[in-house]
């Protein structure tokens, strides 16, 4: 199992889990739209950009295209 945190909350996920799947285990909203709406993944294939999160301090990472790695810190607004 891989230990990660989502907004500071510790979580372990099986190997091969995408960051998007890990976040959805905890919450539905991933980002705020330009008018402040809560948004989550739509396409699941790296095209719609709705699943962007901040990953280890890097903003705008497409969570559906990345696999969880040990110690990863995921934050959402």
């Amino acid at each position, binding site marked *: 199992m891989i230990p990660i945190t989502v907004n500071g909350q510790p979580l372990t996920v099986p190997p091969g889990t995408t960051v*998007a799947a890990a976040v959805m285990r905890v919450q539905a909203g991933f980002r705020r*739209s330009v008018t402040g709406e809560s*948004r989550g993944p739509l396409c699941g*294939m790296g095209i719609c950009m709705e699943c962007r999160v901040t990953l280890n301090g890097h903003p705008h990472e497409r969570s559906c295209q990345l*696999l969880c790695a040990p110690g990863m810190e995921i934050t959402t607004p």
Partner: protein
Amino acid sequence: MTRTLVIGGGPAGLAAAWAAAQSGETVTLLDDNPTLGGQIWRGRIPARYRRFLDPRITVQTVLQVHSASQLPPADRIILATGARELFLPFPGWTLPHVLGAGGLQAIVKGGLPIAGKRIVVAGSGPLLLAVAAYLRRRGARILLVAEQAPYPRIAAFTRSLWRHPAKLLEAAQLGFGLRYRPDSWPLRADPGSVTLQGHGVIACDYLACGFGLVVNTELAELLGCQVENGRVLTDPDQRTTVPHIFFAGAGSVDRSLLEGQIAGFGPARGRALHAARAAAVAFDRGIDEAFALRSELKSLTTPETIVCRCEDVPFSAIWPQRDWRSVKLQTRCGMGPCQGRICGPALAHLCGWPAASVRPPLFPTRLENLLDLRD
């Protein structure tokens, strides 16, 4: 020795890379996903196709290319960039519990537990059935599969499957026990529910919703290949209008595998597969006709409905505009990070506008990457 670059590691790209390697070409296969297999297989390539993973093929995944110097020199390029789902805007489609049909399946394949969740699958096309069957196998409760196509068309298509016993068996296995309802589509979504034409309000944890497929033509367009009616133009050998650039796939798996092999083998050996490809293309055309979108879907988008999710542009801001260019200039619709990949096909359906032209960078990139290009 011919050096071949294959872009996209789904069924078409894998078949193309394998066929080119079989022909003695030096092959590099690129994909921006973490695993090969494309959206349909996502790293779980069926046993009978694992031969495509020829050890002579150089594979690079999770790739972001910032300059040509990152790529190996190539004598020819085979594009197999696949397809995405068509999303049509309706009130509530931006809520976090509304995902694409393939989108939800992808995230469940990526490790989201779905057992016990109540799911409505809606939209159009054979993918709905495949997604519903997959989610059910993973323990989800599929409340309803709402297919927009009218019952007579679905019935006629199902009858036509007698000529394709393997497909009929597959459809029967997927659909067995599912509440599959033609003539139904989502009218609106609210937190925790969806309202379906003919079925009223249904409480659900997720609405998985897609209205068919859109070919990812952006890279081909950027390279100058001619695109017509949403498809990259190809000759019988899968050559595009640009010399040394081929395009394969973006239809059914059968068709993608054949197109990939034809592109990979080249004309001499590829010709033996032309008849099989013609049959696969004809089958795909039957699907397109059976699941053609009904005109009522155009009235789903209300003036308040957000059409451009990146820039939160409502439909009321868009309809006074005449074309893509004025929409972009006046409303910022299509100017966000998805670069019009989601709202473009939606507006093509709603307003009949052809897609806007493609400009680099193909995907948003960091300024530091652009700065590196100066060196």
